């Protein structure tokens, strides 16, 4: 697997704020790589550094082994899908899509075929002559995608492209993007603050916080084995057990977390605690409980299988046992 993008001790500050702090990162060819983190964590900055809209204060950025840190955006073999789509309002959809080719001097006939193919890829064939102002949000987003992909870049950058879409549309687009990426085989670097989105689409995720990468890994690695408190709490929900209970339950003072779905109610296990149910919400696929255990809030998610529904009928205020296996405990750094 060759390396598509490499960050080598890259730092970038805006005034006194360190947007990227000695970031080291390797992104492989052909993978769907997500940069996940809260606002201001530096993920967008790193994306823009790859695109060339910012230059690093120190460190190097390499594209396929070549140092591009000082190259302007128009010289890099990288294309971007912007958060606000950035479609040119004075051009039609077709003109927008063919812009990159036109600028490179591709002949009109060839441009026409490529535009047709690109629009077919995003299912917008019939909209070629419309203006961006006449399209819906989802359609504009697809035009932006086509406009970027038509240039066959080695890396495609997507800056929170689904942020403005409603839930259903977002979910559809997530699947579509993933399919297109597999179809086209290009490296996708995807920036988002929505951890569920990242988990859905990515081959690997980098979790950002305050300009630094907290953890890089596959979705299951990130979710199942968060390395520190931040990752544990940012990705999914976590129950954090600090030194007091830790010692009680595991015999060592190291903090650990347990995911809500790993906890079972009403039975004893390797690690067992007792508490009072303070909240109970039926969420369709599962039921979420909040249990007060010696002043600590525990969140438990039990899947609503037929057997479980038949078995238990807890209510708020009940005293109940909660347990999980030692294996489910994840030590935090």
């Amino acid at each position, binding site marked *: 697997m060759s390396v598509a993008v490499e960050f080598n001790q890259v730092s970038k500050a805006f005034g006194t704020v360190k947007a990227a702090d000695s970031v080291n990162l390797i992104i492989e060819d052909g993978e769907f790589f997500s940069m996940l983190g809260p606002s201001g964590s530096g993920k967008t900055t790193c994306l823009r550094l790859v695109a060339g809209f910012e230059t690093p204060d120190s460190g190097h950025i390499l594209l396929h082994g070549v140092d591009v840190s000082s190259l302007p*955006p*128009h010289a890099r073999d990288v294309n971007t899908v912007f958060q606000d789509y950035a479609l040119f309002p004075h051009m039609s959809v077709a003109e927008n899509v063919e812009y*990159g080719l036109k600028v*490179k001097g591709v002949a009109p006939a060839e441009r026409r075929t490529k535009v047709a193919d690109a629009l077919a890829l995003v299912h917008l064939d019939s909209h070629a002559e419309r203006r961006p102002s006449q399209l819906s949000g989802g359609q504009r987003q697809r035009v932006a995608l086509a406009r970027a992909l038509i240039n066959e870049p080695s890396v495609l950058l997507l800056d929170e492209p689904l942020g403005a879409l409603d839930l259903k549309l977002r979910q559809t687009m997530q699947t579509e993007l993933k399919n297109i990426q597999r179809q086209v085989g290009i490296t996708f670097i995807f920036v988002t603050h929505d951890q569920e989105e990242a988990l859905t689409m990515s081959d690997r995720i980098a979790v950002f916080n305050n300009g630094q990468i907290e953890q890089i890994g596959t979705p299951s690695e990130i979710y199942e084995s968060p390395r520190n408190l931040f990752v544990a709490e940012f990705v999914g929900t976590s129950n954090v057990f600090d030194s007091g209970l830790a010692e009680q339950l595991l015999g060592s003072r190291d903090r650990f977390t347990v995911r809500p779905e790993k906890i079972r109610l009403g039975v004893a296990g390797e690690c067992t605690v007792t508490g009072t149910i303070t909240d109970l919400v039926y969420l369709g696929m599962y039921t979420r409980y909040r249990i007060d255990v010696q002043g600590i809030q525990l969140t438990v998610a039990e899947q609503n299988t037929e057997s479980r529904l038949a078995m238990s009928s807890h209510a708020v205020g009940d005293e109940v046992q909660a347990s999980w296996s030692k294996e489910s405990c994840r030590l935090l750094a």
Partner: protein
Amino acid sequence: MPFREFSLIRRLSTYFYTRRRLRLALLLALPVGWLVVVYGGSLGSLLLNSFFRIDSFSGTIDRTPTLETWRQVFTDANMAVAGRTIGMATAVTIASVLIGFPLAYRIARFTSGRAKTALVLAVLIPLWSSYLVRVYAWKLLLASEGVAAWFFNVFGASSVLGWILSLPLIGGPSLSTSSLGQFLVFTYIWLPYMVLPMQAAVERLPESLLEASADLGASPATTFRRITWPLILPGVAAGSIFTFSLTLGDYIIPTIIGNSSPFIGLAIYSQQGVAGNLPLAAALAIIPVVVMGLYLTGARKLGAFEAL
């Protein structure tokens, strides 16, 4: 009692609340009335007068419709006046765009907060002082013994100045008595009116569009040509309306700077005031009206009215 007693004003206000058209009509009655009667009426009267002629013998206006006055307008001398004025207006507009654009772009894109306010103020401050004072100041600056000439001397380039002044169309005995000097003063005076609409247009341009263009492989020059320029053109057109029309109608600067060759404004003043030849003055006055009408139609097509 379910309803409160309302005062007369409240009742009037309620009455008008639902009758939007009536409200609008009353609001616009005065200004539109002024526009139609005073402005439209004056223009109409002007047009009407241009079809009369002045009686050679008695010097009074003969009110039988005729095209004789219009024939006089299309003489070589008067066409030269019109050509000179339109030519200067065009040159000033182009120069204002060339000078104003980098300034507007810089202010809009690369400054913010205090620095931006300071720069915008710097552009506007000349407008706070008297127009005449500024023009007279320029007359001194451009005089053959003025600051501009001194500058050339200091750099040993007085022969360059001499060469410039010897050029046929734009030169003259000194900068202050040449068309070039006139052009410089016109451009200076109207520049703020060009910078501000352009600055507004550039500010409305989303940064992401320019980034997208660069991202897709366009060099800065190409981005400017294909993206920036077409999108700010309405702002440029809006600013050009000001510079073109203001230069077209100006009759003060040509009397202070330049070699006294008449512009349309001066020609009209001479015919009306000095000669009492109202029909000819009216006919000459129609020329700028027609020119501006054409110009505004063109500017509207470019979207200038939205940009204003």
